[in-house]
Structure formats: structure tokens, C-alpha cells
């Protein structure tokens, strides 16, 4: 509970529960019968409006989509708290202002390019191929409930991070075949606190109640940004040094990666750490000569995939119709 002027505290309530009751049912029961001051957001009761996300036993979930008894059986308790990484207004109601600011910042609307004869049907409408629609299918399902934002590990220590929900929305437009503003869009999210600040903790993708998979959207957006030539940042240097290292040796060459990612001058800054590691025999040395025996097979794979280049676009996933 959060009451103005008080330190936040946990309040216990006893209620009778029926099989199949949801957390939202319980919150309603408490508000109706025991404590009319209890504040929480809710609207649709069918997991589509995204209003009722709360932390349930530590994990962000939709109160209307989560049944009480299985939760209780799993954890032996039922602790309901406001979402993390948001300022609390009262009880379970949190302040979404910065969340929405970030969503607006990525310009969440299509800026269509001119359609060509190839992309138009006889009435002048864009023809979207099934595989192109599938690329943005998952991210189109976002209901802005804030669960991913609450679970995000980068957000917990960097409140300027744009966050998984807004980044998934970036791919909604960057991955749309009609989008005509991608260079600018991708350059903007390649700046600090953007796509390259994600630590790949997979929390967003794990907790999303609509299976939006923000992490995959971030991976797709990163690949597209690199393809668009937006490379002047440490994130891209990190990726490219890995791609080069595996091509050259089959393995990750940690030492070269460090120097390439940080650049020469910033690498000097970690010499003290390097020396400490060297003292413990941990300093990685550049893999100048060592490579795996089957390096020719690895090079062949690179050659074949890169040859196809134009056919396999950034953001190509099984969901694009490679499967089924």
C-alpha cells in the first residue's frame, strides 16, 4: 500500500477464493467488501487492454489473466505489488508518464514511402505479402501493459533506457515494408540508451503476456541498423568484432574484441584490470594464429550466407514463413 506521506507497506487481506478466480477478482472483492480505498487499474478483464499489470509474487503479470490458486500453490504465498521501474502513485497504480514519453519518442506511426506499380493492387492499395506481415505480427500484439518495462534489467539501473516496449514498437515500423523513414528511425534508436543498451537478459520476452518477444524485435532492429550502415557506436563494433573473430578463427577472440569495441584510447583505460587479470593468469591474448581445425567449413558457411545476402534480409526469422 502507498499512502501519501507514509512509507510504503504491505497490507494483508483474507478472502475466500473459488477455483478459477483471478487476481483481479480478488482485488475487486477486497475493494467491494473490505477496503474501498484500495487502488488499482483495470478495464477489460480479458487480457486485451493492458491496464491491470502488477507484480505477482515478484513477476509482472496481468491480474485478469492470472488465476489465484495455481500462483498460490507454486509460491506458497500471494504477494501483489505495483510494477517495478515505475514511480508509484498509490497502492497498485503506477505513473506511466515516462513510459509513454519513450513510446512517443520513437515516433510510433508509419511514414510510408511512395508505393510503386509493383507494390500496388489495381485500386492503388499496398499489397503486403504474408511473409512481410508475419515479420511484424508479434510486435503488433503489444498492449502497452508495462510488464516488460517492469522486468527489464537495464531499466532498473538506467532510467533513460528507452525500454523493451518502445523498442518492440520501433520494429513494428522499421520492419514494415511500407516504411520510408527507416534511416532516421534506426539512427535515432542507435543513440545512447537505445537498442545497444539492452543486456539480453530475456526478461521482457519471458514475461510478456501477449508473446510480443521484444528481444527478438531488438535483435531484428539491430541487424537492420547495421545493414543501413549506422555503425558508429560501441554496440556495432562489439557485434562486428565477434562476426570477424568467428570468421577468422571459428572462436571468440576476447582480446581483439575488447580493443575493437572500446577503441584504442578507451582500451588503455582497462589496462589496470588487464594487468590484474594477467596476474591471475586470466588475461586473454589475441588469437592471432590459433583457429579451429574446421575453419574452412566455417568460412564456407559465411561465404554461402553472405552470397545470398539480398535474399535473406535482416529480421528474417522462422516466423516469416520459413517454417510452416
Amino acid at each position, binding site marked *: 500500500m502507498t499512502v501519501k506521506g507514509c512509507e510504503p507497506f504491505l497490507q494483508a487481506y483474507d478472502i475466500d477464493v473459488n477455483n478459477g478466480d483471478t487476481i483481479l477478482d480478488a482485488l475487486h472483492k477486497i475493494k467491494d467488501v473490505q477496503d474501498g480505498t484500495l487502488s488499482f487499474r483495470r478495464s477489460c478483464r480479458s487480457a486485451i487492454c493492458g491496464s491491470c499489470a502488477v507484480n505477482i509474487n515478484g513477476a509482472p503479470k496481468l491480474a485478469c489473466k492470472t488465476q489465484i490458486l495455481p500462483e498460490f500453490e507454486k509460491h506458497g504465498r500471494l504477494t501483489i505489488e505495483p510494477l517495478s521501474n515505475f514511480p508509484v502513485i498509490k497502492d497498485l497504480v503506477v505513473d506511466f508518464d515516462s513510459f509513454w514519453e519513450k513510446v512517443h519518442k520513437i515516433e510510433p506511426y508509419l511514414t510510408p514511402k511512395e508505393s510503386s506499380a509493383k507494390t500496388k493492387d489495381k485500386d492503388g492499395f499496398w499489397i503486403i505479402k504474408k511473409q512481410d506481415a508475419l515479420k511484424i505480427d508479434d510486435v503488433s500484439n503489444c498492449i502497452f501493459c508495462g510488464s516488460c518495462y517492469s522486468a527489464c*534489467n537495464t531499466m532498473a539501473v538506467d532510467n533513460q533506457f528507452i525500454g523493451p516496449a518502445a523498442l518492440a514498437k520501433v520494429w513494428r515500423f522499421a520492419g514494415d515494408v511500407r516504411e520510408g523513414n527507416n534511416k532516421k528511425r534506426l539512427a535515432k534508436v542507435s543513440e545512447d540508451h537505445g537498442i545497444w543498451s539492452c543486456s*539480453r537478459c530475456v526478461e521482457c520476452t519471458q514475461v510478456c503476456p501477449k508473446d510480443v518477444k521484444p528481444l527478438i524485435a531488438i*535483435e531484428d532492429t539491430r541487424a537492420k541498423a547495421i545493414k543501413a550502415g549506422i555503425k558508429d557506436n560501441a554496440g556495432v563494433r562489439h557485434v562486428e568484432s565477434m562476426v570477424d573473430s568467428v570468421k577468422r578463427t571459428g572462436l571468440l577472440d*576476447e582480446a581483439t574484441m575488447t580493443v575493437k569495441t572500446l577503441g584504442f584510447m578507451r582500451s588503455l583505460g582497462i589496462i589496470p584490470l588487464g594487468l590484474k587479470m594477467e596476474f591471475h593468469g586470466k588475461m586473454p591474448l589475441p588469437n592471432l594464429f590459433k583457429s579451429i*581445425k574446421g575453419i574452412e567449413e566455417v568460412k564456407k*558457411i559465411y561465404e554461402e550466407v553472405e552470397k545470398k545476402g539480398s535474399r535473406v534480409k535482416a529480421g528474417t526469422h*522462422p516466423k516469416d514463413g520459413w517454417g510452416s
Partner: protein
Amino acid sequence: MKYAYYPGCASQTITKEYDSTTKKVCKILGIELLEMTDANCCGAGLITDYNYELSITLNARIFAIAEKMGLDIMTICSTCLMIMSRANKELKEFPKLLKKVNKTLEKAGLHYSGNVKVTHFLWTLSQDYGLDKLKAMVKKPLKDMKIAPYYGCHILRPSNALGFDDPEKPVSLERLIETLGGDAMPNEGKTRCCGFQIVLVTQETAVDMIGNRLKEAKDAGGKCMVSPCPLCHINLDSYQREAEKKTHQKFEMPVFHLSQIVGLALGMSIDELELGRHLVSPENAITTVVGD
């Protein structure tokens, strides 16, 4: 019990001690490891950020090698585990994708039929080897060792590709610690991120994460931590001084590799456990087991 053993790149260089102690522990337990010396790097997700098809095909090459060996893969790295499990799941679920990947593999003289499983050393011990059998092998119980389990991310999430522990309530590390006679100190940070993937990109952010994980372990009464992932180990151990400087706290938190706490309980010596390779000395944490 026999596996195609995939140590991962980190444990061939920076965390060599994790690789060598795993081999020693497995030898004592009778788990046979055939090292995949010709396997390539899994890409750690960074190659996925560059080109999805390249990433999945490179992973398929690893599976093709294991399939030829007729063995399932066991790794000691959580990130390798997650990247390989994700790729393997997709290759098994989408026949068209497998066919396409095989077209490329065949140009390199390889083929993958989709019959390999990927597992982690922690899962092997917990399930395939079994904790009862492990308990019977314990020579020096980890008496009074207060160990904070640290899972990190990639051994838990995404659970649809991994699926061993429940990411909301993992138990395998606690059970392992208890099997070895130690005290598992549950802590709220055990499933949170160490920031390894961004430590070279946005170091400040990563160091904050490291500081939080160490603090949570310490606040829960942990005198040391155990990690099933060499990458988490690098951050929590090698960058611990940086985290102390940034957060103005003293942690003195030794971090063990999974293999080291098992080896300690099996009676391996400090030299054999290669504890001297850690930046934060673990010697004080083990005095209740080996004496001063």
C-alpha cells in the same frame, strides 16, 4: 554417461579454470566428456544481431558435429546453452528452416537431422547423474558454507527453449548446494542480470548491475556466490573492484564456478580447484571445509 562437451569460448581463455575443473569433476564422477575441439563459437547472440541465418547455420554446424559423434551436447556456459537451445528449437520446429540451413551446411560437407539435445552441466548433475548419487560421492561436505546461488539469465530464460528450471522459482542450484552439504542463501537477485553482454558497450550500466547482484547476495547472508555461467563469473569476479569503486561499498564476495563447489565437496585440493585464478580470493570462504 557420455557427452559431446562444449566448453564455450570464455572457458578456453579467461575462465580456463572452469573448463579444467569441470573435466576433473566429471572424471571423478564417471561422466565421460568428449571435447568438441572442432566446434565453432555459438555467436553469443551477437551474430544474431548481425545476421539471423548466419547465426543459426553456425549453431547447426555445432549440432552436426555432435550428431556425427552420436552424442548430446553438454556445455558449461549459460549463454552458449541459451543460444544453442534457441537455435535447436527453431531447427526442430520448422522443417523448412532446417532444410534451408542444411543446404548451406552441405556446401561445407555437413548435415544436421535435428536429433541432438543440448544440456548444461548443472542439469546433468541435477537430473541425468542425479543428486542422490552425487551425495554418495561427497567426501568433504561444504559445512557452514553460506553460498548465495546465482542463476543469472540464460540458464532460465526463455523457458520455452530451455525449460529445466521454472524461471520464476528455480531450485536446481539450491538443491545442488544442499546436496553438497552447504547452506543455500536465497536472494532476490539470483535470477537478475549481471550485465555481461553490455560490459564493453555501456560499462557504467553493467557495473551498476554487478554491484546490485553482489549486494543482494551479501544482504541475504551469502559469504560467497556460485554461478553456472563463466560470463557471469567474469563480471562478478573480475569487475567486482569496479563495482565497489562505483557504489562505494566493500563486497569481498568470492564467486565460485559450479564445478569448483562440486570439486571441493568431492575432496579436490585448492590447487586442483585453481582458486588462485580468481581476482577475489575464495580462500576465506572455504575455511570451514578445508581448515585454515
